[in-house]
């Protein structure tokens, strides 16, 4: 979904848009809280591709995050799953 899986003309601003969307989130927080607050936000993940925050966050194994680093580690771990 993110740029590292796109060949040819990679789109590299996906995490920029994701982090912009995460701006209202204060930590500690939960997966449910993130989805409740910004789950419908559309994240541009390709030149002509979008997905929702809920689609990105729902699969994460962890349900709560003490800090932003913990959330993003969970997010990255999931992004790299085949």
């Amino acid at each position, binding site marked *: 979904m993110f740029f590292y899986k796109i060949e040819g003309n990679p789109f590299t601003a996906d995490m920029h848009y994701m982090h912009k969307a995460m*701006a209202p989130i204060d930590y500690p927080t939960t997966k449910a809280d993130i989805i409740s607050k910004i789950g419908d936000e559309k994240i541009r993940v390709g030149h002509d591709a979008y997905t929702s925050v809920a689609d990105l966050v729902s699969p994460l194994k962890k349900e709560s995050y003490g*800090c932003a*680093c913990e959330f993003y580690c969970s997010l990255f771990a999931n992004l790299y799953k085949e």
Partner: protein
Amino acid sequence: MNIGNFYALHGKIETEALSVVVSQFAPKSAANWDQIDENVDQIIARMDQAAAGFPGFDLFVSPECAFQGYHAGKWSEFLLDIDGPQVQRVKDKCKELNVWGIFNPWIKPKDGRFCDNTAILVNNEGEIVHEYVKMNPWTPGEPTQAGSACGVADGPKGAKIGIIICADGDYPEIWREAAVNGANVIVRVSHYMAPFDRAMQITNKAGAYCNQVYVVSCNTAGMDEYYNYFGESCIYNPDGTEIIQAPTGIPYVIKADLYPGIIDHMRKQAVHANPMYTYRYRGASNPDDDGYGQPNMPYNAYKY
């Protein structure tokens, strides 16, 4: 301030300014009680100077050994009582000026042990709210008993203050211990002499950067019968960059306004450069570890 973090730091930061005055000077190497009193006079005078020069400041920091110096032959004859008149004078001065203070009396423990190299945090009511016994005495030349904990105390303006003493700072684990215990400001008082001037700067900067914490360093400046104490007291940002540094070897006062709430905010909201999380959850972004990382502690240095 936020160097090393790729990601924007989101959220509203609410913090008060902690106005810190660091006063570097040299005590006499006391060989009698009159000289102890003269050293206390000097501490008091420096506090008055701070009030005159920096109206409204919150926290006064003085060097290690400021009460007694370190007389090579006689220091152990002039240990203080934590409840004694010398310590009481600085407590009273804190109350009078309505400021907090950090001081370093070498204490004769009431249980009969030899000596504790003790740093105290006094609040603006003149009460000792935190005592720290140096965990890494400068052995073999400093035969005090090593302390067993590096606690953190609530200070003014949102500060969570950890105190370490001189040679403590040469050991990375004590910085980490203070930070893990919640310190957003680590104060290092010292009686550090040449040729360790560069070492003090390096370790202070590393302590700040590696633990995402303000570092306030107050060192003796002057000479005694043995050494040149280089001063160079300094205050560092949590990315290890310098806010201000005092000159070499002369009495001097530096002051800076710190924002402890920023540290607390960074530890919650920072994506990268969040060592207090990442050191405990190594590799947490690895898909096989699924956000949990490797929770075991593999370092033999921490398991001996």
